[in-house]
């Protein structure tokens, strides 16, 4: 299951860090952040609750880059 989310982040390096953080979140199979399009593509593992996982993703992203936002 793949989904795309709109994100807000100010610098490209921060976007890279968000990508790393999202990838490491439980329930996320793979994630890519496109800084230019301000989009995060998340591939979820089977049978997980997207909303709950995305909350974790956001929390992890906030840890590496305080000034970011994911809209889900």
């Amino acid at each position, binding site marked *: 299951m793949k989904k795309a989310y709109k994100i807000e982040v*100010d610098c*490209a*390096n921060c976007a890279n860090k968000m*990508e790393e953080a999202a990838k490491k979140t439980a329930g996320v199979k793979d994630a890519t952040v496109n800084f*230019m399009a301000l989009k995060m*593509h998340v591939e979820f593992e089977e049978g997980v609750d997207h909303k709950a996982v995305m909350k974790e993703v956001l929390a992890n992203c906030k840890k*590496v880059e*305080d000034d970011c936002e994911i809209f889900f």
Partner: protein
Amino acid sequence: MNKKQKKMLVRILVSAALIIVLKWIPAEGLLRFALYMIPYIIIGYDVLKKAWKGICNRQMFDENFLMAIATIGAIAVALYEGSASAAALGISGENDYTEAIAVMLFYQIGEFFQSYAVGKSRRNISELMDIRPDYANIEKDGELEQVDPDEVEIGTIIVVKPGEKVPIDGTIIEGNTSLNTSALTGESLPREAGVDDEVISGCINLSGLIKIRTTKEFGESTVSKILDLVENAGSKKSKSENFISKFARYYTPAVCYGALALAVLPPLVRWLFMGLSPMWPVYIYRALTFLVISCPCALVISIPLSFFAGIGGASNQGVLVKGSSYLEALSEAKYVVFDKTGTMTQGVFEVNGVYENTIPKEDVIEMAAYVESFSTHPISKSLLKAYGKEVDKNRIHDVQEISGHGVIAKVDEKSVAAGNEKLMKQIGVAFKPCDKIGTVVHVAIDQQYVGQIVISDILKPHAKEAISSLKRNGVKKTVMLTGDTKVVANQVAKELGIDEVYSELLPADKVSIVEQLLEKKGKKEKLAFVGDGINDAPVLSRADIGIAMGALGSDAAIESADIVLMDDDPLKISKAIKISRKCLRIVYQNIFFAIGIKLICLVLGALGIANMWLAIFADVGVMVIAVLNAIRALFVKKL
């Protein structure tokens, strides 16, 4: 400018003004320190906050941390220099608070510029791709109502007025108009369309009011597919981008440890082993300069920005690239393999000429068209097209189709045979062999040979130019694959100047030939396959880069290819390669320029030649130049 940017601009201006004002205020000691802290806090509070949070979250090696350490360190050095011992070293202590604030100020100016430039190019690119229709007109009780295109069901009749975008794919049921397809294809000539013509969403209606019966939902329409493709283009990252993110991951910590070593080791060595004064402030200052230089932002921002601009510029020219990795691969394309039919030729058969005729040419075509009029074979279609008049089917009797040979029928009580050499032999008519290239239809009336019609697929107008342009642009070898006969294939290849031809292939053979070619080529050379995407999906996906052309409205092609040429002009292939080369040139320029300048400045900083001001240039200046350079990738119209 958005809210954040405006706020930042105010902070920059206020703190810059304060620094200038403070120059004229003769304050000493603690008061001086307190006064100078005002602009420092105004300009740098968020950086300090982020750095602190980073330390709390154990994510300390980012540029906020670098800036916080560098500026706090510079202030500390300045404080220390106020004391008498520093004065002995001959460093002027007067301006050093200013230096710390200036570092922060310039860092924020850089960030501000970066955010502005990125936002601006983001908007530029989306303007280029501004094909998203906002509404659809539906006629209700004689009046037009604007509705969300998402809500329009298949089969609904929508009205498109002149100047409006076609919102959904469909068929015209009323009205004639010309359509501007340039947003989709880059082609500037308008296309004429009338009743029963299919129209594609994203075109702009230029002249007349048309009514369209929709054949797709909005989400399935061409315009949605294209937007989806371009917006998600970034999900496949190129080698350069991966290199940069990896580089940044190791580089920042490495520089931090380097700075620490620079601050501690040389003074210790001087003090313990050489018996000299350790000169702590000098080396701490150098270490701080080192930190300011090191910020990886210029690199990290400019590489994805270049690709994004390149992809945006390409889509404006009717070349859709599905990801930066393909743009990168395309720039290394040394082998280009073509499908013949539909790619280099139009895939439409046309009568080329009538030869060896004993009766007028028109009559030969008329007779052939009549006997073939019941067939749906492409050959008979081209004959009917060449005849150009209505066929009176009452004149035809006793149609006898002999599979693999041709047709015999009675037209106006004359027995007419039209077919290949085998048919002529079978009915015992002496025919003249044909030396022309193409499919030959021999015609005989009442056992008398009257002539031969040569039908062939015609080359696309720019096919020859396209091949020579590829050659000029460093493509080593062009190869053509076709299911057609050897004679036809060789003739086409010769005419176009193609190096290698493989003919009489089945679709599966095409895959194995591409595989052979893939094995033969060098490691750094890429192979591109160009097809029309209809029956060559396996080959498209097997090649390094699959290019589908004439894909306007063909979902299969859009899905299976890596690069999609919206119209079917083969010249676009070399254009796409040129765009990719320009983009990659910019990417490499930025990588070498940014890393190069940084390394030079790092060395100068370590040796104490570079001061904070040069460090600022190495950080902000390089970033600004790299971003401006990246934006060049957007301008590809004249390539």
